[in-house]
């Protein structure tokens, strides 16, 4: 077999690094456009506002990325976030427990719900769409029930609002008061990016999405891993719950519906395939930023709201198309 020609990958897609750079192009194009179009756009405070607007959707999108890479989908990310926020409210405000317990409680609640979704999908073989649709509704109802359909305020837990709106970075570099919510998003992205690319769990994420049956035939306990992945995604939703609750200084029990589409959109704009098997956290972050920049830029330009919607729709399509064209060109 020494006669094998060196692999001449005619149809090989662009390399990972290349692909990521290309994905940035749309984001940068948007930033440049809005900077030119509106003098107010490129202020530090507005950039921080964009980052803060990304924080919740970005974290949810990271959770969704994990599940989508396995070939599943998670419609419950939004209402799970709310449920976790409400749990934090119950622990901190209603039960008056100390802050760390509230944080742990919210994340644990997310992990438990994720485990349930994962079990429905892996063990009971319910299609992810249905399992997480069911969970989405159940959690929406439970949030309302537990909270008594009223927001729970965190006025008695002074440190709570620091989680998202305080600024550790700002204490060190006062001119860049990046809110902690944004910091959490970026740290989380790094951690989950590492998990995806460098750990067994990440490996099985891609493997399950690529060919679950083949993984099972290799003797891997696919069910257990799948549940673990959903549980991880759930606990990330718990973090999103903390960020949003801290930002609003309250757990808003009615919030969360519709957030799943934004999160999934960020994931798909970022180049992760809904068919599973491929995707990246960097892509998802870019996708989430594209959406946030777009909305903020149109608002700063004072575009009428109905036109904002039209333009957003068009640009989402255009951004993905441009990406596709560039990838195809890079491939040939």
């Amino acid at each position, binding site marked *: 077999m020494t006669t094998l020609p060196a692999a001449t*990958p005619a149809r090989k897609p662009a390399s990972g690094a290349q692909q990521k750079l290309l994905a940035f192009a749309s984001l940068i194009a948007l930033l440049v456009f809005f900077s030119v179009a509106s003098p107010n756009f490129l202020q530090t405070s507005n950039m921080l506002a964009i980052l803060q607007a990304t924080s919740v959707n970005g974290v949810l999108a990271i959770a969704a990325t994990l599940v989508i890479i396995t070939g599943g989908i998670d419609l419950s990310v939004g209402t799970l976030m709310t449920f976790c926020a409400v749990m934090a409210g119950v622990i901190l405000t209603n039960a008056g427990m100390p802050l760390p317990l509230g944080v742990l409680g919210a994340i644990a609640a997310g992990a438990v719900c994720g485990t349930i979704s994962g079990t429905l999908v892996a063990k009971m073989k319910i299609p992810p769409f249905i399992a997480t649709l069911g969970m989405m509704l159940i959690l929406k109802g439970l949030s309302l029930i537990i909270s008594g359909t009223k927001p729970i305020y965190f006025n008695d837990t002074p440190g709570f609002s620091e989680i998202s709106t305080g600024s550790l970075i700002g204490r060190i570099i006062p001119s860049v008061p990046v809110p902690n919510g944004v910091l959490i998003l970026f740290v989380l992205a790094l951690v989950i990016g590492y998990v995806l690319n460098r750990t*067994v769990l990440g490996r099985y994420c*891609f493997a399950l999405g*690529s*060919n679950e049956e083949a993984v099972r035939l290799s*003797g891997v306990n696919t069910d257990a891993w799948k549940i673990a992945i959903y549980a991880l995604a759930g606990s990330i939703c718990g973090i999103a719950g903390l960020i949003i609750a801290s930002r609003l200084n309250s757990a808003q029990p009615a919030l969360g519906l519709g957030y799943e589409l934004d999160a999934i959109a960020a994931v798909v704009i970022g180049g992760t395939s809904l068919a599973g098997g491929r995707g990246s956290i960097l892509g998802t972050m870019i996708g989430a930023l594209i959406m946030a920049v777009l909305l903020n830029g149109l608002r700063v330009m004072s575009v009428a709201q109905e036109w904002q919607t039209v333009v957003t729709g068009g640009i989402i399509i255009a951004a993905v198309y441009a990406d596709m064209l560039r990838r195809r060109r890079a491939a040939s």
Partner: protein
Amino acid sequence: MTPAATLVRMTGIDKHFPGVHALRSAQFDLHPGEVHALMGENGAGKSTLMKVLSGIYQPDGGTVEVSGEPATINGPRAAQALGIGIIHQELALMNDLTVAQNIFIGREPRRSFGRLDEAKLNADAQTIFAQMKVRIDPRAEVRTLSVARQQMVEIAKALSFRSRILIMDEPTAALNDAETNELFAIIRGLKAEGVGIVYISHKMDEIRRISDRVTIMRDGAYVGTVSAADTPIETIISMMVGRALESVHVDIPDLTSAPVALEVRGLNRGRIIRDVGFSVKQGEILGFAGLMGAGRTEVARAIFGADPRDSGEIIVHGKPATIRSPQDAVAAGIGYLSEDRKHFGLALGLDVRANVGMTSLARFSNAMGVLDEAALQKTAQDYIAQLAIRTPSDRQEVRLLSGGNQQKIVIAKWLLRNCDILIFDEPTRGIDVGAKAEIYRLMQALAADGKAIIVISSELPEVLRLSHRIAVMCEGRLTGILPGGPGTRQEDIMRLATQKHGAPEEALA
């Protein structure tokens, strides 16, 4: 050999699928250090029996003993624990992962906290490939590899288990002779280490070369076990099919006055196809030989409009044809049977009838687009009979058929389309001897009927047996065209197939 030395003993194995009695009291045994071939027609139950042994299916009845101990193998893990490894007939790879990641899935070298040791992973894969004497980049994504290389990855994966019992279900279906030789060298090495190997193949010559004993199955039942060295091939074949087969030989017609059906001039596509030109006459069978990756499939796909061309003219019946898509090609009367039936040939989730009709729905529908299901059913059933496709009915989902029967369905759909020019890419891959003979006869009949036929095959005996002329490719170039018939030897083809660019041109026939 004493019974205690028996690695595996399967007796009275029964397995039912809805509508199919796949195994009827089947039996099989395996000794350490032997290669035991398992033979039978398509759908005889070979793969099913081996899936029972590797824990993928649970038998409805019967016993399995491993090393003399009764064993319940309730999953792949249990099979691995017993030292049983399997190379599946259908590739079971994760396309998005790299070669090394595929090989060690589930057994990744880890560091603390579940972190992966990617360097060791790649090095380990490299070691296995070095043992196999194959050059594959462990970091390459599997989806970018050709089917043959993917098959090599499967083999590497099975070897990495260091199993005591290794099942190979048609490992050479996608390999060419050189690669097959390398595999056989590996098998001999394993044999020497005392590994018991189950070898399933439809290539009769391989059985002689590699196996010690042969077990023959028919219709899910055990027919007999014979010694490979002492049993004539004809005997094995008649045990498989229940009758003797007459052999097929070339009978080259005089085509001097026959009109040219297809002419290709100056075909180029990147570095994969370089300036390929040839012609096929009506009634002619043109064989295409070459090593894996020589570019034959690419040429076929380019002619068929499945891939874009950089340049090149395609002339059909003397008129230049504009072919930009498979649709154009089919309209021009060209049909193409892909070598990769799973990805490019079949809608696996649909039934036999839908797949057979796929190329010709226009013919089975009225102006409103309403299908004539009765006619479709009759046609599908005709082909099931004609090609002896083993299926409970024409409504069976294609994914539930055995590999060889799936291939026959791909053939049926192109026969139905009745194209003037047919390109068969590895048409007998995974097809049993009986059906193979049937397909050869079919192609000869089609040629006699005035069709132009191109056969791409990595099996030289097949090319020699069928072709009126033989085109040979190497590294994207057409290195020569040889006459068919007994005058041409395998060595002539091999010389052209390994003729790198720059070497002197050989005579063109």
